[in-house]
């Protein structure tokens, strides 16, 4: 991702999510989203999320504070804890297309979170 894209994404996320905060950590931009909605039926219904915007990576990464249970009442597959900037977050697998010239950061975050709607 280019530095221009990262700057744009940070601005979009700060504007779209109330209470969002940003930080720089080891050359990456981090945006902490105080509350994001998870797909209907997930427990919890909302959680905090973290977006990592790394100039060395082709697309953003989204992590969540709590490991949710899916609408089917089970633990989602391929979710694991990870340390980012001294805090524990849950990273999860998702397959979201990203074209930095076409998509917004908000679209990316919301698409990634929809992965928890899957009943697995």
């Amino acid at each position, binding site marked *: 991702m280019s530095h221009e894209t990262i700057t744009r994404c940070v601005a979009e996320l700060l504007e779209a999510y109330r209470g969002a905060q940003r930080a720089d950590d080891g050359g990456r931009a981090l945006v902490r989203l105080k509350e994001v909605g998870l797909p209907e039926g997930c427990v919890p219904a909302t959680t905090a999320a973290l977006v990592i915007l790394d100039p060395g990576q082709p697309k953003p990464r989204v992590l969540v504070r709590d490991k949710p249970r899916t609408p089917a009442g089970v633990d989602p597959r391929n979710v694991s*804890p990870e*340390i980012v900037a001294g805090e524990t977050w849950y990273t*999860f697998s998702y397959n979201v297309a990203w074209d930095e010239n076409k998509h917004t950061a908000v679209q990316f975050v919301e698409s990634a979170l929809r992965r928890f709607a899957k009943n697995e």
Partner: protein
Amino acid sequence: MSSIQIRLTRPSAKRLLEHLKQFQFPEPMAFAFARHAKTPRHDLVLCDDIVIPPASAFLSSAGHGARWKGSYMIELLNEAAARECGLFIFHFHGGSPVRMSGDDLASGGELLPKFQLIIPMRPHGSIVLGEDSAAGLILMPGRETPTERFTFRFFERRMVTYPLPEDPPRERLRFERQPLARGSRVWKVLAQSKIAVVGQSGGGMHVAQQLAQLGVGEILGIDNDHVEEGNRYAAVLVSEDDIKGKSPKVEAVRRHVVRIVPSVKYTPVAARVPEKEALEALKQADIIVGCVNNLHARADLQEVALRYLIPYVDIGLSVETERDSSDEFPLIQAIPGNVFTFVPGGPCLWCTEFLTEEKLEKETESRGRPYLRTVDNADALVVSFNGVLASQAVNEILQLLTGFAPEEYLSFYKKYDGFAGVLAPWTVRRNERCPKCSSLLAAGDPVWRS
């Protein structure tokens, strides 16, 4: 507010102390850029970058104390602000314990609030170091008045923390025949230490038991696994009841070490690194020992150690057998192992390429961390080989706490050959272009902004 502890990396402490202890007029002084972090035990002030002002930065001074130009101060504050760092002033006095002079207190009281106006999100301080103590003023973010209460930690041949424990002559007599240290101070250092042992299986059980026997103050045992039949051959602290009852490993270890040393404090943390409970426990530790069986866990421990300036001792062993052999006694191809000691500011597991992105990718078959599968009881299921490496890990901890071996014998990396029965030192150096050291060393917590 929890207690404040200043931590300096090994190279920065060396540079700072060598400069400050020079005899010159006016007295030598230096600055340090500082970050900070909140942990359950301390508010940490983390310094790696020492700035020794050039002669041109100083004004002529009639008194003993150094005076520097306002333009130099502005230049330094601008750099600190650009790097999101606080600014600390250091100088050196004689006296034991050392104290801030009236002039030091007045200038600190005047300067620190000004620094805070410019960089409010980081701590600032004015510190005087002595031969065996430190004193000073620290103004933490969000505070209106500076505090004089803090501890000061740096790394040389050993890890030194001021104030040192008291060593009254009456107590010294009790220890005069001890080989590692004649006074009571070393034993008090051990008794005040909190050591996290990650992985309470083959290596970690040995380590926990030996730490208890050495009188370490608190052992944080971290593991989310349960005892099973396979542990019988790998671990020292497993009983038949533990196997039958599938006891959580941390509970099994707690029961056994408390039976051996009733006074030991063993805190079980039934979680896996990097789960939150495990991470919070690690942040409290004076030293971390990693007895883990995958590279991702090692990368996590290394990150915590770099970020919060915590020494980290890593052990690893594998028993490489011929694949697909149906022999009752398969030929063992190699029994390699390692003991790696990270001292903050020294070489890390990334500097030495023990950890690389490629190796981490291989562990998840290039599918990313969510696909990491930990393999319990893989490979090293031999209690005696585990014991060799675990004992050396405890020796490394003793070196960190007591500095028993001279500087020239310090080795950050020891390779083990189970065939030859040899644990040999290997020279490793910090890679100045190491991507992790350059971005994570003394990084502390990031500064969050709206």
